[in-house]
């Protein structure tokens, strides 16, 4: 089975690290491939993926218009990469470290016609069936372990980040580049990224209003 781990350029955020941790749970029964759409070839995300030695292949989808595509197009490209590789599992972070909307996993699932399960914290193969997985997700105040069929898109849970050491040098040693024509996609038909919704407003002061303990006690008292 191929496990596709999606990286966000230019920096490998918390999501990439959490996705790598999940992918490693299938080490020995699956082959992990990292993919990063856009950004420069020497981006820290790609360098990180090589240095981790967790990935058999590290793929960079490179084309100038990719810098300004919307999340649905990004989902379509990642879904196409998954389809070309025959990936059974696609793993993404919950959301980016910048805007943090978390729509790309849903867009990948939509284009791949695969189910999406969010907030996944554990992953293992289900018995002897190579096409089934046991996943544990945080849902409704429970840790639920499900038996699921592949292909499937998984996004990580918000806090599933622990520092793990890189593996011994068995992973990819160089970045492979794919272009949109190689994926059968027409760069002219990419949908440009629209302006993000809403007016940016400066964050409130880092020095919030100060209270005495008595004022705080009144503030915390439940409304009658």
């Amino acid at each position, binding site marked *: 089975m191929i496990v596709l781990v999606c990286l966000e350029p230019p920096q490998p955020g918390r999501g990439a690290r959490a996705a790598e941790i999940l992918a490693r749970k299938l080490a020995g029964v699956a082959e992990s491939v990292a993919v990063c759409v856009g950004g420069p070839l020497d981006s820290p995300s790609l360098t990180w993926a090589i240095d981790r030695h967790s990935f058999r292949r590290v793929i960079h989808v490179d084309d100038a218009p990719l810098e300004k595509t919307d999340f649905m197009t990004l989902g379509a490209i990642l879904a196409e990469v998954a389809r070309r590789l025959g990936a059974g599992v696609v793993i993404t972070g919950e959301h980016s470290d910048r*805007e943090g909307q978390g729509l790309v996993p849903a867009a990948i699932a939509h284009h791949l016609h695969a189910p999406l399960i969010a907030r996944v914290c554990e992953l293992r193969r289900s018995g002897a069936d190579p096409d089934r997985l046991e996943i544990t997700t945080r849902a409704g105040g429970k840790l639920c372990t499900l038996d699921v069929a592949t292909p499937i898109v998984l996004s990580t849970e918000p806090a599933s980040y622990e520092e793990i050491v890189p593996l011994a040098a068995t992973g990819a040693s160089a970045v492979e580049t794919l272009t949109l024509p190689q994926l059968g996609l027409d760069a002219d038909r990419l949908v440009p990224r629209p302006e993000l919704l809403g007016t940016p407003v400066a964050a409130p002061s880092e020095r919030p209003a100060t209270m005495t303990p008595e004022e*705080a006690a009144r503030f915390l008292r439940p409304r009658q």
Partner: protein
Amino acid sequence: MASIVAYIEVREGAITAASLFAIGESRRIAQAAGATVYGLLALGPLSHVQIDHFAEQVSAAGADRILCSSDESLAGPVLDITHGPILAQITDHLRPVLLFFPAGGVGSELGPPLAVRIGAAYVPTASVEIHSLDSGQASSPQRIFVTRWRSARDTIRRIDLGDLERPVVAVLAAGDKSDFAGESYAEVEMIPYPTPKRPAERVLRSEVDSAAEVELCGTLVCVPAGTDAAELGTLRAALPHGVCVRTEDACDLGRASPQRLILLSVDQARLPIRAAVVREVAGTAAELAEALHRSASPDREPST
């Protein structure tokens, strides 16, 4: 009239406070802009008594009508695979302008796929702001904003709902039940569960998630790392129901999305969360616990 749908989450047989907050926020918007508020229950098999019990609470929190889908397929964990079809059916039928999910994780599971499916704008960890256009007039028109923190926590994005030509799917920050006292019973419309397109995923195991409490916490008190465990326990015992306390280095802090954040000698910049209302308290955990005891029993003498 425009429709607002608020998803109602039930845990251990009880509606979450965050869900009642979502209904309350929907009601606040409906009163300002004119809209019908629908509370949506999508649960496993329920008796009429259970449906009435839930409907009474949702109605009292501010819903005009209640949509209820009760089916074996909805009995397991809330997943897009199982709950997505009922949401798609309801949004297709009602065409709501706004669909709220409560805090607690259900929004990050169901919200993005729904937004993709219906072409809606998606706003995670949202707060609602209602601004009067003319403060001098009691009945002046009002503008409704949904705000959200960027993940980088450096900027807020403020979205004017009046400017949008498409629906909004928003996941609210955790909050407490509003003061609104609605009718004790609203009409319940039963929605048949659509025929599943694929077999349901099999649940192998299910256990309590000890880290889930903080997600539903509407008010979070954050104390310095290294705070004495006994002092922390005293403060925890003194805090009103629904208020959580965590040290600034707690591993589950990143899951929280409280509406109100109280900082006791903690630097906000170091925290992985932001909140709509933030207050600093000049005091220790023990002093706050003592003040809470005194406020509960005003005759009590300050301890020395």
